[in-house]
């Protein structure tokens, strides 16, 4: 078990190295010029050239990559060339909204999708099953920003139940915090709900046919008991896996959702940074997202052993 964990952890290092090289190269060859943006519209070409030199943007590729990796290894993600703030500080400022959005979306999605999937499997072939599956297909097909605008229009503008935009820090109260996040979470959660509901239904159907479920039935365990205790417990592995894999979906969706709902999170930071070609920020954020994704899946792999004692290493 420990050896396996260690092996898995070591295996993530080359992956992160590839990501780092890729991200750095990508932006190195990018045509935009932060110096020109900084200098502003009234600057002369000579001004732009001097600013470029002062930012160190005129040094060779390997020197800059080397510097960058050296810094990262020392926990320093660099300094934004626009705000002059450390990238780690900027990420820290933005992480709460994004994390909040993801956590609420995740909880919401699991709370809605797992019962949906279970019920669909239980009532297989009935109209309930078909409705759930139709919803799942729909969830995949309607883009997140369409759902977002639709929700904002109905619930914030027409009905005026919830705020249209923005974010209230958790420290200012759980009520306002939740109010601001519920619409974006539902919009972002659509795809996720569809995904988890389908997986849940499929694995439940499979598990329900297993011998031990028949045995439990024969022993007189009630239908609800079978569904939620026996079957769901055994279906947990694939469901958890999908939740882990879907973190990438959440990250991608957050970029769009945060734009629609004006949430000052990491997604907005990323888009702003790309439009302004703030290299250190783009690099830091993509690295962070990729690292998170790798980490989540690492943890899930390790969790398998807890959920499913049949898996041994």
């Amino acid at each position, binding site marked *: 078990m420990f050896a396996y964990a260690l092996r898995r952890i070591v295996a993530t290092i080359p992956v992160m190295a590839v990501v780092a090289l890729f991200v750095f190269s990508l932006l190195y060859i990018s045509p935009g010029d*932060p110096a020109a943006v900084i200098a502003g*519209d009234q600057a002369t070409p000579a001004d732009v050239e001097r600013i470029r030199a002062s930012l160190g943007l005129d040094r060779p590729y390997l020197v800059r990559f080397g510097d960058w990796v050296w810094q990262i290894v020392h926990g320093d993600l660099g300094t934004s060339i626009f705000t002059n703030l450390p990238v780690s500080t900027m990420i820290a400022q933005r992480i709460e909204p994004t994390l909040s959005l993801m956590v609420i979306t995740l909880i919401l999605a699991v709370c809605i999708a797992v019962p949906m999937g279970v019920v669909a499997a239980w009532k297989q072939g009935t109209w309930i099953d078909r409705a759930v599956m139709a919803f799942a297909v729909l969830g995949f097909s309607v883009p997140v920003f369409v759902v977002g605008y639709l929700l904002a229009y109905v619930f914030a503008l027409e009905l005026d139940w919830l705020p249209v935009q*923005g974010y209230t820090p958790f420290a200012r109260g759980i*009520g306002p915090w939740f109010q601001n996040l519920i619409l974006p979470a539902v919009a972002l959660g659509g795809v996720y709900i569809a995904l988890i509901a389908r997986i849940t239904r499929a694995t439940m159907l499979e598990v329900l046919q297993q011998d031990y479920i028949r045995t439990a039935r024969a022993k007189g365990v009630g239908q609800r008991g079978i569904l939620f205790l026996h079957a769901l417990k055994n279906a947990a592995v694939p469901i958890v896996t999908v939740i882990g894999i879907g973190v990438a979906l959440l990250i991608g969706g957050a970029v769009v959702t945060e734009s629609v709902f004006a949430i000052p999170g990491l997604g907005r930071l990323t888009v*702003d940074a790309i439009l302004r070609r703030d290299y250190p920020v783009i690099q830091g954020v993509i690295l962070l997202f990729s690292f998170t994704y790798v980490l989540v899946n690492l943890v899930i792999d390790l969790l398998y052993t807890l959920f499913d004692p049949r898996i041994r290493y």
Partner: protein
Amino acid sequence: MDRRSFLMAGTGLAAAGLSAPALSQGAAARTLRFVPQANLANFDPVWGTQYVVRNAAAMVWDTLYGVDAQLVPQRQMVESEEVSSDGLTWTFRLRPGLKFHDGEPVLAKDAVASLNRWAVRDPMGQMIRAIQNELVAVDDRTFRWSLKQPYPKMLLALAKNNAPCSFVMPERIARTDPFQQITEYVGSGPFRFARGEWVPGAKAVFEKFADYQPRSEPASWLAGGKRVMVDRVEWMVMPDAATAAAALQNGEVDWWENPISDLIPQLRRSRNIQFDVADPLGNIGAFRMNHLHPPFNDVRARKAVLMAISQEDVLRALVGDDESMWKRLPSYFTPGTPIYSEEGGDLLKGPRNLDAARRLLMESGYKGEPVVMLVAQDQPITKAQGDVTAEALKKIGMNVDYVATDWGTVGSRRAVKTPPGQGGWNIFFSWHAGADCINPAAYTAIRANGDGAWFGWPNSPEVEAKRDAWFAATTPEAEKAAMAGLNKAAMDHVIYAPTGFFTFYTAWRRNVSGIVKGPLPFFWGVSKS
């Protein structure tokens, strides 16, 4: 209880029970929430010259002089000045009792260091530097600037609201290389920058500076007594116009700097919202051509563009149907200002004559080579100009290569002088604040000194001579004559193609008062009930 009030009550309870003490009613009334035109991404008003940085900086840093609503320089930090009879030596005396936000007094050496840094980056500052003998602090409150030649526009240079403004910073900060960003945001202005609450891309907070000593005159733009009536000003960045409109309607923000005009009818329906033209000096759209390469190295091709573009179409696309918000502009200068001139702007007047434009373009020797047009999609102003003029140019037979890109890329590519096929360009779009185009003082884009000129590098000794004539002018009549000559020379040479004059609205909640029209949002004198 209907569902809505139930929800409200529920969250109210939750907030009361679980949160840290919420802001009291009074505190909310003393916080002004403002949606700025753009994100405050960096905060060094000398190093970066975007308008949004200048606007924020005007709250935090004070200036020696400031222009008032009549565009006349007035003393601000300066108590008195003296100029020698030959016009070569300027002696300035600071007001007593000025303090920086860190509690230190403002001294003459701070002003000297700040002016030194500013003069490297500012077009007018550069002119002064070129003729400067020395700039020295005489004592704690007096400093002297001695020149080799007279510079009649000295007070305008120190008072102008065009970026970069000559903001006064503590000497230790002002010693920063003008091409490096400052890292400390300490000024002596009426607001203190709450750096800890700054989230670039989302939020910037300014707190009232209790030790600020406003002048006794009433406030007028950057001049007069800057009296702050609120405790805090919170800038909330919202890149999406629809979101900002909704936030204003719901009372989540108090003041939105630049609502797009299409949303005005919607805002008009709300009894709680007022709006007005933000800045009567408005903006001038600019269609900029590269004078170094064909086809626009030939003045006839540039003139064909003037004949082809329909300012009305551009302006409708950009501002909308409200005709009070825009104006056709057969000039390079801001309409409605004292020395405005339309001399030589005939090609931009009257109906469009596409046939004549087509003929002129042919005469210039244009043979259908691709014309590279850079259009930044993330700026509504450049996008509308690009979409409309691309169509117009196609109609006169131009082979337009429309390069959709972002403002950052335009910023870098427009500096490339190589031919369009090798990474250069033929056309890009920009705009100039009307306040910058009242006269040639801070109007970089009107220059025609070849390599030294703004992007496009027009070269016309005639235009430069007329510009110098304005700087030499000492009477209003002489200035007016110089302006007419300059506009005509610039039109004849087609320095660039103006695409029209347009203004924007600004909108605020009815409980906010004291908002004045101006080239930037002024937060002093604004109160909230």
